[in-house]
């Protein structure tokens, strides 16, 4: 229906001026017939009306003429007003020829026959009808079915009404309100309209190829004014109404413009879609899209992350491995064991200040006293100019019910990662081992590992346990047990009682233990013992959105750094699930409580029939009982990585196009798409390779410099890093004067590499990939510029997101000492094999450098242009 709101004289005039040919014809014919009625000697009404009794073979013309004839002027005016928009719309959709054929044919005769048949033989009456209102109802019926398909129901005052019934309402209203109107005649029109709308009468429409042939032969389009071509809608045949096929319709109209060939038959739309897709491919606007698309990828990727803490996106944790049965056994570690603990505590307190060997002598004598086999292992690592050396002591409690094929490890380091002495953890571990020795239910060996520190010692021991150690630095283990099934480390440095237990679970390089292990500890501590559990140093957690988000982000940051976070970290790369338990806070829980938690966890691990594998290895915890799994969070990192690849592809395509008209001297005809310009690959490949190989320098320097040199070195490097892009850019412009295309290619290759590395990395260490991806994402949006001011501004904006600047800012924000950060990175690199430095220096930094060089790049053409304007 035309929009009535903005009705006015000019609009009405333009509307009438735009009426298509057939509509004008029909209106004119109707008016003409009305004019004919004015004369006296030929009763047009009697001649043309549809009178059931009069219908014979010779008077069949009546079935065609009756719509043109009206009872009186009012009848005429109302019908014209109602009919004009409907016919106009119909014609614009289906073409003049089709409308002509249909309105003079089936649209008149079918309702007529229906009416006559019903009136004569069913009702036995003989009411004459005339008037164009039959067409109105017919078209209204088609329209109603169409509306019904798009919008099936209409809710009025709580009543849901099918939309196809609206013409019926009009019909009823008219039948009641307007005198001498033939409700039944209108109904016949409406019924035929419904059938047309439903597609039953499509077979009666004249064959399109015939119409097309006529149209072409007679050149109707050229000759007739206001003519609507059949081609207007190749699709607009009966029954296949455009509304029910919304998708192909616009494509068809777009694709048909200027197509040199014709398609016959209804299957042609597929070809048209392909043709228009090919056309779209060459559309220059397509090339404008990728920057927005890649920006969208980054934004969606980051926004996705912030949705994760919501209840809809995260899940409650659950125990997958049925064999674990956490918290199902009664724990007996209490009572008299407290006295044993106190005794050991005294012994351990006496050892503070002694050397590693002296401590081990004493501790070994205690453990030997349980009747266990013990052994020692020496190790020496060198990192950041320091030697990290020491001696591990370990004891194996052989399983009374096992065959020494599997083992669980209890770790207690003399110092935790903050270099506090594990004053209560060591005696607790000893007490627990003594207590475990008394039980006969162990089916797995229990290994007590006492290390001098929290990073190097466990790493040396695990490496040697799996024979993956460097024998020059780490000695082999004289005594071994079976496959390690799990490990629990105790870090109980605080004196006095505690409130809750903090589970540390991050492994080296962001690897995580199986979620079942954490769930078991949470279940045993929280559910069975009534001890609170905290994660990621969130000492207070209200399970609200903010706290969840904070927990998740802290976890991601730790994962991204990839540094070891406790004695358990070294176990995880060997596929040994491990956590560190850290009692904290001021409460009423004593060391026996944490002992019982460990006992319960060991009993659960003891139940395992196979390695923990049921639950997730890739997850983000946001509360002790809430997590998201890889399937939910991976898309955000992948989207961020994809943004680089999208830009790389876009730049590649762009580099293949002629730069502008002046650059290409050859004149091409517009009909043939310009073939890709030859790309000069050697210089861009060379530059990217050079920048990539340059990255070995910082990687080597920061991993091999002594600690005292680290900070000065870093400062120098940061300064150099600011100067490096202008220098490289200058050298590049001086030596080879690259073109814009080559700059595009440099950027394309660099972004391709970045996207590739990051998407590979996302499968290994999601958080690192996401962090680097987000920090590097501006690189995909910067571009070389002709104005030197823009270049300077962009460079200024790029500098704060350079890797050294970000490292500085992060160290300042968290208030940590830069030297210690660099030292920890070097230790992680040498001791644990952390690969985060590789990602920072060999993936991120070269991408940043290449991006900065491209931003500063001055093309040969650009300089010429400047000379001309100057």
């Amino acid at each position, binding site marked *: 229906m035309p929009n009535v709101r903005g009705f006015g004289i000019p609009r009405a005039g333009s509307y009438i001026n735009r009426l298509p040919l057939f509509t004008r014809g029909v209106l004119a014919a109707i008016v003409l017939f009305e004019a004919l009625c004015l004369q006296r000697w030929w009763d047009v009404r009697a001649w043309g009306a549809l009178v059931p009794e009069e219908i014979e073979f010779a008077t069949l013309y009546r079935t065609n003429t009756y719509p043109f004839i009206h009872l009186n002027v009012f009848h005429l005016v109302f019908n014209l007003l109602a009919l004009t928009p409907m016919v106009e719309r119909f014609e614009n959709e289906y073409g003049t020829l089709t409308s002509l054929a249909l309105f003079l044919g089936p649209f008149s005769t079918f309702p007529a026959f229906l009416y006559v048949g019903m009136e004569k033989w069913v009702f036995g009456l003989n009411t004459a009808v005339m008037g164009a209102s039959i067409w109105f109802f017919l078209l209204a019926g088609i329209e109603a079915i169409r509306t019904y398909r798009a919008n099936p129901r209409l809710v009025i005052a709580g009543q849901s009404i099918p939309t196809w019934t609206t013409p019926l309402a009009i019909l009823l209203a008219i039948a009641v309100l307007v005198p001498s109107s033939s409700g039944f005649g209108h109904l016949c029109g409406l019924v035929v309209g419904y059938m047309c709308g439903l597609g039953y009468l499509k077979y009666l429409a004249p064959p399109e190829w015939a119409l097309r042939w006529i149209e072409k032969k007679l050149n109707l389009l050229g000759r007739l004014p206001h003519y609507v071509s059949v081609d207007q809608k190749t699709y607009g045949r009966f029954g296949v109404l455009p509304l029910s096929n919304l998708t192909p319709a616009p494509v068809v109209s777009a694709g048909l413009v200027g197509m040199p060939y014709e398609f016959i038959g209804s299957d042609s739309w597929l070809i048209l879609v392909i043709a228009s897709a090919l056309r779209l491919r060459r559309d220059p606007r397509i090339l404008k899209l990728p920057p927005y698309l890649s920006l969208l990828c980054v934004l969606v990727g980051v926004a996705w992350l912030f949705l994760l803490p919501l209840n809809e996106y995260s899940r409650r944790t659950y125990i997958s491995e049925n064999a674990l049965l956490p918290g199902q056994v009664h724990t007996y570690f209490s009572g008299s064991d407290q006295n044993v603990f106190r005794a050991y505590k005294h012994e351990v307190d006496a050892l503070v200040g002694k050397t590693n060997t002296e401590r081990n002598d004493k501790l070994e004598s205690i453990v030997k006293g349980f009747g266990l086999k013990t052994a020692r292992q020496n190790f020496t690592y060198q990192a950041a100019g320091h030697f990290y050396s020491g001696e591990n002591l370990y004891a194996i409690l052989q399983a009374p019910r096992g065959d020494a094929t599997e083992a669980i490890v209890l770790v207690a380091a003399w110092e935790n990662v903050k270099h506090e002495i594990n004053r209560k953890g060591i005696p607790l571990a000893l007490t627990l081992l003594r207590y475990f020795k008394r039980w006969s239910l162990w089916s797995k060996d229990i290994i007590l590992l006492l290390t001098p520190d929290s990073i190097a010692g466990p790493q040396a021991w695990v490496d040697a346990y799996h024979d993956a150690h460097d024998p020059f630095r780490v000695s082999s283990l004289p005594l071994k047990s079976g496959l390690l099934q799990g490990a629990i480390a105790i870090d109980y440095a605080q004196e006095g009682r505690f409130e809750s237990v903090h589970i540390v679970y991050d492994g080296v390089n962001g*690897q995580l233990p199986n979620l079942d292990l954490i769930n078991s500890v949470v279940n045993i501590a929280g559910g069975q013992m009534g001890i609170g559990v905290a994660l990621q140093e969130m000492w207070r957690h209200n399970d609200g959105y903010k706290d969840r988000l904070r927990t998740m982000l802290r976890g991601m940051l730790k994962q991204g750094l990839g540094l070891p976070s406790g004695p358990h970290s070294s176990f995880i*790369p060997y*596929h040994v699930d491990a956590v560190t338990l850290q009692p904290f806070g001021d409460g009423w829980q004593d060391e026996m409580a944490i002992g019982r938690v460990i006992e319960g966890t060991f009993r659960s691990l003891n139940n395992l029939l196979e*390695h923990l*594998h049921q639950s997730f*290895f*890739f997850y983000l915890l946001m509360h002790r009982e809430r997590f998201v799994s890889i399937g939910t969070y991976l898309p955000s990192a992948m989207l961020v990585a994809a943004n680089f*690849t999208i830009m*790389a*592809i876009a730049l*590649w395509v762009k580099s293949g196009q002629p730069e502008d008209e002046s650059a290409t001297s050859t004149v091409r005809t517009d009909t*043939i*798409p310009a*073939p*890709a310009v*030859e790309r000069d690959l050697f210089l861009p490949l060379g530059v990217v390779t050079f920048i990539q190989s340059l990255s070995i320098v910082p990687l080597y320097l920061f991993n091999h410099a002594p600690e005292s040199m680290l900070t000065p070195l870093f400062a120098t490097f940061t300064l150099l890093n600011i100067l490096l892009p202008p220098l490289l850019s200058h050298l590049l412009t001086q030596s080879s004067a690259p073109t814009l295309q080559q700059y595009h290619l440099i950027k394309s290759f660099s972004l*391709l*590499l970045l996207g*590739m*590395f990051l*998407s*590979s*990395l996302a*499968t*290994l260490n999601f958080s690192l990939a996401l962090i680097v991806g987000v920090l590097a994402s501006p690189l995909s949006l910067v571009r070389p510029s002709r104005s030197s001011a823009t270049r300077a501004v962009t460079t200024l904006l790029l500098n704060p997101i350079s890797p050294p600047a970000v490292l500085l800012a992060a160290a300042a924000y968290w208030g940590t000492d830069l030297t210690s950060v660099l030292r920890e990175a070097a230790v992680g690199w040498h001791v644990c094999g952390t690969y985060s430095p590789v990602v920072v220096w060999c993936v991120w930094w070269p991408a940043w450098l290449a991006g900065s060089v491209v931003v500063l790049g001055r093309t040969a053409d650009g300089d010429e242009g400047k000379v001309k304007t100057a």
Partner: protein
Amino acid sequence: MDGAKATPGRTAGPYVSAAVLRLAILTLLPGLPDLLTGRVEISTPVTSFKRLQEGLFLYNHNVSPYDGGVYHQAPLFLPLFSLLPSFSSFPIFTYLLYIAVDLLSANALWRIADSGEAGSSALFSSPRREKRWSGFVIAALFLFNPFTVATCIGRSTSVFTTCAILHAIAKAVSGAPFGAMVALSFASYLSMYPLLLLPPLILLCYDRQRSERATKSGLKFAATCLSLVAGVLAVLFQMSYLVTGSWEFLRSTYGVQLTLSDLTPNVGLWWYFFIEMFDSFRSFFLAVFWLHLSSYVGGLTVRIRRQPLVVLTLLLGIFAIFKPYPSISDTSLFLAMVPLYRHVFPLMRHTFVIAAVIMYATFLGPAFYHLWIYAGSGNANFFYAITLVWGLGQSLLVCDLMFAVLRDEWEVERPEMVGKEIRQI
């Protein structure tokens, strides 16, 4: 003919630097060779250096090298490697041998490039042939291809096959059918599958015969070549029999390739398929897979009759995808041949996509293998999925190269269509 005129210094440049690079990696990074030798992407059951050492140990202790079912390589490797000083005490000699083999391959490639066969064969001259890279560039691209370097460092024995194939082609283009056939026999003896290269190679030899002693009759020429190959192979088999003292080696070397009895993962498409296969269908699908592999030979040879070197290149690409035990060494051989077609590069349509797919697969492959084998957080499907991508990248390259070459031929036939868009169906 850039390389022919080049000064000795220029010629030696890439060889010396490639040798120095390899020696430097082998000596300065002592852990790397063993790491690469263990990678499934480089070492397959039929080319692994570790397995060769096992066979060598057995051979030196007068036990049949095929006992224990670890060694699946040609018997003549054993006397060759026992002639060298022991690998454990003097690894440098083994390194030098592998480096020399790489350099010999590069030399053969250089000669192929300088012959200009890729641009203008006996029956077809490309209108674009002027635009090509010299032998210098092509040899350097081969020598410094990371895949080639990794294969050399990983000491896979497929480098010998690569060398033999390249020499066979080099001999063929320089009009020495005898040498070509002998080299191809060696390649076939070492790896069996190069035998499928025989039809296009015979055509290449036939086209490039020296005019003074050319054989006109194609059939006679082919028969001579075939009998020559058969003769050389017979001699090699007889020598192998003398070395090992039994015919067992046939089953353990070629039999393994034919029946895929060792299902160690590799970058190919066979292993996963045959792990999943029910035993009753195994022989049928083995036949189907081999038939599929060999079916390309006839079709391509006939279709691109006018450019036999193209057929050889495309077949090498197809073998690198569909062989029973492919490795990145086969890809490096294919990638070594592709730059010969510099003149049709502008006709290729998906170069960037292909490069991106191959590079993505190169990085994601080891990552997924790590997740599967070491981290335990992935499974075999991860790695297999990425080998599918790897195969997809290579098959795209094969298709695109084929399209470009055919289009080049077609534009000579129909000059009016130059530059117009066409569709491959």
